[in-house]
């Protein structure tokens, strides 16, 4: 019997741009830019984030953008922005530099934990969405802000799993669950995912995608790690679509004794 999930169109959309891979990756923290292309090939990732502050078109050495194959879409991010206004300026520069209309908003005023400033993120999203950007905002998991980002024209919601680079996984799980329940936009769990099993768990929970950078970039074999995360994301997605049985806090017999009364 053919599985129902294989007959469904399970394409992920940000704005009207379609993606078949649900694993987003990053360019930061790699020991060498040369590893980025093989990592992308192994992971199947079709969207990779790049800190615009690291882009140098006049670089003497190969610029970070030149390591990314043409088939993969660039998601410039506003890393380094401390205010909404700076994020907006970075987004505009990215567009002018030929990085396209995608933008990942990062407004961060906390250099110790790199936690996002939701108010600044929302403000930047409002402005950039109106200018036609496909805005993916990195945010602290918050239901009210999720709704506000939706109204502001975001193309996705990117709650953090745990602080950037911590590899702690889904510390924010209960909040992310609520966001998945209410969000009409794709939910991408960003930051903190350190293991493929955590990526799978996020996908099983119903996240639409995950973004993984540190765990892949700082592994001993980023190509193999990219592949492992891709498989985990696929497995998690498949499990979600298969609507696995929920966990129960009480025992429930598989053949209830009173079942005949309802039949």
């Amino acid at each position: 019997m053919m599985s129902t999930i294989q007959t469904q169109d399970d394409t992920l959309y940000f704005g009207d741009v379609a993606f078949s891979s649900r694993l987003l990756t990053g360019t930061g923290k790699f020991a060498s830019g040369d590893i980025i292309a093989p990592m992308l090939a192994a992971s199947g990732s079709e969207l990779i984030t790049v800190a615009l502050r690291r882009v140098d078109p006049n670089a003497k050495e190969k610029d970070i953008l030149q390591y990314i194959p043409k088939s993969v879409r660039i998601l410039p991010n506003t890393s380094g922005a401390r205010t909404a206004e700076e994020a907006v300026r970075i987004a505009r520069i990215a567009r002018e530099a030929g990085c396209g209309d995608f933008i990942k908003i990062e407004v961060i005023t906390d250099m110790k934990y790199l936690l996002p400033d939701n108010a600044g993120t929302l403000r930047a999203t409002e402005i950039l969405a109106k200018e036609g950007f496909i805005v993916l905002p990195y945010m602290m998991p918050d239901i009210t802000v999720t709704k506000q980002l939706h109204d502001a024209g975001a193309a996705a919601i990117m709650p953090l799993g745990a602080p950037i680079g911590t590899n702690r996984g889904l510390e924010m799980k209960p909040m992310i669950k609520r966001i998945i329940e209410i969000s009409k936009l794709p939910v991408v769990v960003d930051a903190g995912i350190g293991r493929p099993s955590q990526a799978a768990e996020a996908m099983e929970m119903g996240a639409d995608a995950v973004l993984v950078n540190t765990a892949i970039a700082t592994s001993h074999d980023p190509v193999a790690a990219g592949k492992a995360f891709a498989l985990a994301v696929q497995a998690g997605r498949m499990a979600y679509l298969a609507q696995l049985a929920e966990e129960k806090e009480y025992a429930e017999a598989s053949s209830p004794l009173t079942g005949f009364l309802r039949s």
Partner: protein
Amino acid sequence: MSFMSRILELESFDFDGHFQEVTSADVENSLRKDELREQDLFNLLSKTAQDYLEPMARKAQKLTRQHFGNIISLYAPLYISDYCSNACVYCGFNCGVQFPRTKLTIEEIEREAAAIAATGMRHILILTGEAPAQTPISYLEEAVTVMKKYFSSIALEIFPMDEEEYRVLCKAGADSLTVYQETYDREVYKEMHPRGRKADYEYRLLTPERGARAGFRALNIGALFGLGEPRKEACLAALHAHYLEQEFPDVEISLSLPRMTKAKGIIEPKNILSDIDFVQFMLAWRLFMPRLGITISTRESAEFRDRLVHLGATRFSSGSKTGVGEYSLKNHHDATVQFEVTDDRSVDEVADMIRQSGYQPVFKDWELV
């Protein structure tokens, strides 16, 4: 409330006694923790902790990779003036040292900037002696404006200024401020800085705070090792960095470990910082503050710097010339240097070493918009 109150509070504290009391069990306990407190910093800076350098190094390497990845940022220093009205007894720019002083014109600064930028470098550190009459704010503002044409990040290591003056330089495009306390020990400080503006310990100590309020996005601080007692200096520098991190969460904080090297007119260091102490301090700092930037200058030898890449360093200077106008205007033998460069490899050579060590050299990691 400022870090000065903390310094005063700690003046009666018996650092030596506390370091000596640290046991192996204390060190092991601190090493097991995810989040370290001040007592843990003490434990890891003690002599006892030197038996635990390898586990400290492993943990430091892991934390650094986790937070900064496999990258090392590069920058170059540019000395634009060696005029100085201070009499710091350990410094080659000391006003008592007789040598022909130089100050670059704005045109010369541009030539130097172009020469450095041609190496691929996009982060610059501008340095001067302390002589506001020779290098007034208007001159520095103009220098920063010219530099903006060539560099994406401009750091300043100039004489301490008032908040309003710093605002002017931030507005011109400077983003980062380096100021070393030289020594946190007030008695030693007095002895080392007998006259000149720099004799004011408190004004210097509070400089990073004024800088943060003025809008600098990154602060680099530290002690000049060789003046005060090294363990105490390492401890107070870390507490200072920690204070700034708590007080100014939107500012990136870095520490450096400059060690005294030879320069004209310099005194012999009172307290030699050994390589082993150097490494231990770096590791203890990393474990205490996982997001702390750690800057390594070309004062250190090439062989030593090659090892430090793996131990928590995040930023290297490279291709450094420490004499005014040395990049394009003068040859090395003519220049009077503030300190001698020990690692004299070119930018390309340092970048190659970083690559061969399994890290990525990053020339541009900043853009002020």
